[in-house]
């Protein structure tokens, strides 16, 4: 949203109003990026500049689809861009998914990042083994947060309750499980390298799962090649003396497991919590991009008390007036123009699906902004009539008892969070309660 606004405001004389459900801005940069990746959050600086631009204003605490409809927004503005991301998650769809100790990565990440709706998650970390389904960057973030030394985490903006829980955690072993093989891992090399270098941990993987992989290296494109080389090094290479010693001293372990798909979460004897996970063993068919996982019929049980499914976020329908492709879970669009609806655009994950790093989503947002500006230029987006803009919307909101939060209000929340964090040597201590955030308003 902020990147789309940035482009519009810098490259044209369009005015942009940003509506956000929570009182606080920045979406995934605040709630998704891991606490120990503060450099990624530097983008907040450019977002802040955009929000402070004369032709841009931020309106938090406004739920589009509830407090104001998309149709009402379209009446008030010449164009509406939907950038509301993916707040749902794909489910495993297996028995036992509702047992205690089973969480979506979305909720677990929301918990340690202070998303208000996940503040009461209270995950049980009293078991020794955690199994994560999925092998993307989110899965690695979760593994890393579970196994990082608390001394490192306590200097980040991780929420206090997560820090306290992790300090008491018994989790010593994390398995990161995927349906396919080593050449299909979706994570990127930076995150893998962080696991390999994580203090106090050692990699533990089965050499047999890497048979034939080294031979493929020479045919791989550079990014996949470097990633696979690092994976092989961690998984099967004999370590040097220093590294061997480091591994022997390590009290925590992590490893990828391949060709495994969840069939069932197995309950404890009292049937309340997860005690294990039953996995189907796969083999791969086909090659290159067409590689598919096929069940062999074999099954494997792994004992564990914590199961985190990290198999994808998912966009949800925001308003019945907005076209939505339920199968792909995106808004049907052509280059950001929502199909069959003039004046409606989309950008980011709700447009293309929930994958990609900041650069991918950033460029996608610029693309939507360009499309919108092109439409103004061509006349297909009519800007000749005068529209009420935020004035029109404020009248509706006032009638409905909704009080938006301005960017200056956010700056007060920001100062307070920073102040609370300073006391503890953290960049900030996030407020977890929407009510508390709203009290900070001018």
């Amino acid at each position: 949203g902020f990147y789309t606004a940035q482009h519009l405001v810098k490259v044209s004389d369009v005015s942009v109003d940003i509506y956000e459900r929570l009182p606080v801005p920045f979406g995934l940069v605040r709630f998704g990026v891991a606490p120990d990746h503060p450099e990624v959050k530097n983008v907040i600086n450019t977002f802040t500049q955009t929000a402070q631009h004369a032709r841009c204003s931020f309106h938090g605490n406004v739920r589009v689809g509830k407090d104001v409809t998309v149709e009402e927004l379209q009446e008030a503005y010449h164009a509406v861009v939907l950038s509301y991301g993916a707040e749902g998650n794909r489910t495993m769809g297996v028995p036992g998914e509702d047992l205690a100790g089973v969480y979506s990565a979305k909720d677990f990440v929301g918990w340690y990042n202070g998303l208000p709706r996940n503040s009461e998650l209270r995950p049980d970390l009293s078991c020794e083994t955690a199994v994560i389904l999925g092998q993307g960057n989110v899965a690695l973030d979760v593994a890393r947060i579970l196994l990082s030394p608390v001394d490192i985490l306590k200097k980040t903006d991780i929420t206090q309750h997560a820090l306290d829980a992790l300090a008491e955690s018994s989790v010593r072993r994390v398995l990161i499980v995927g349906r396919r093989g080593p050449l299909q891992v979706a994570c990127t090399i930076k995150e893998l390298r962080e696991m390999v270098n994580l203090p106090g941990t050692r990699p533990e993987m089965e050499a047999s799962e890497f048979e034939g992989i080294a031979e493929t290296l020479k045919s791989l494109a550079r990014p996949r090649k470097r990633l696979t080389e690092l994976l092989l090094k961690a998984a099967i290479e004999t370590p040097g003396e220093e590294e061997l010693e480091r591994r022997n001293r390590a009290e925590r372990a992590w490893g990828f497991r391949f060709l495994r798909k969840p069939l069932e979460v197995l309950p404890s004897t009292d049937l309340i919590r997860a005690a294990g996970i039953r996995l189907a063993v796969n083999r791969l068919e086909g090659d290159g991009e067409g590689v598919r996982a096929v069940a062999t019929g074999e099954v494997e049980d792994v004992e564990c008390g914590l199961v985190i499914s990290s198999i994808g976020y998912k966009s949800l329908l925001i308003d019945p007036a907005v076209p939505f492709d339920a199968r792909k879970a995106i808004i049907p669009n052509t280059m950001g123009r929502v199909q069959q609806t003039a004046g409606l655009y989309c950008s980011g994950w709700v447009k293309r699906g929930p994958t990609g790093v900041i650069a991918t989503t950033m460029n996608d947002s610029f693309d939507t902004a360009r499309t919108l500006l092109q439409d103004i230029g061509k006349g297909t987006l009519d800007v000749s009539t005068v529209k009420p803009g935020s004035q029109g919307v404020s009248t509706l909101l006032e009638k409905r008892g909704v009080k938006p939060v301005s960017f200056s209000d956010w700056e007060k929340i920001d100062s307070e969070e920073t102040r609370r964090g300073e006391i503890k040597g953290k960049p900030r201590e996030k407020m977890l309660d929407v009510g508390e955030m709203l009290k900070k308003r001018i």
Partner: protein
Amino acid sequence: MMCVWVALPGNFGPFEASTKCICTANIHHKITTSCAKGNSFLDLVVDQNVYIDGFGACEGTLACSTCHVILDQKGYDQLGPIIDEESDMLDLAFGLTDMSRLGCQVCLSRDLE
């Protein structure tokens, strides 16, 4: 004079391109200024207020690939060695080439031609 091509997808500069093909675009200004020794190309872009949409998103901390630049052989060879952390982020860059570096790691100094 080091010749640096800013490599980003989408429309930038005088070139039209779809996001599917590699787009290398020349920056609007030809910067022929001297800069403090040790400053990076990203520092230069920021100091000179050259607006390149989305360039240097992580502000030079090796957490993104948006300052991706492509150099000619001569320029590339003059640069210091590349560390793993830079290569890791370059792996994600759009239109990666053998002469690619991250602009935040390209250190400009008076010695460079």
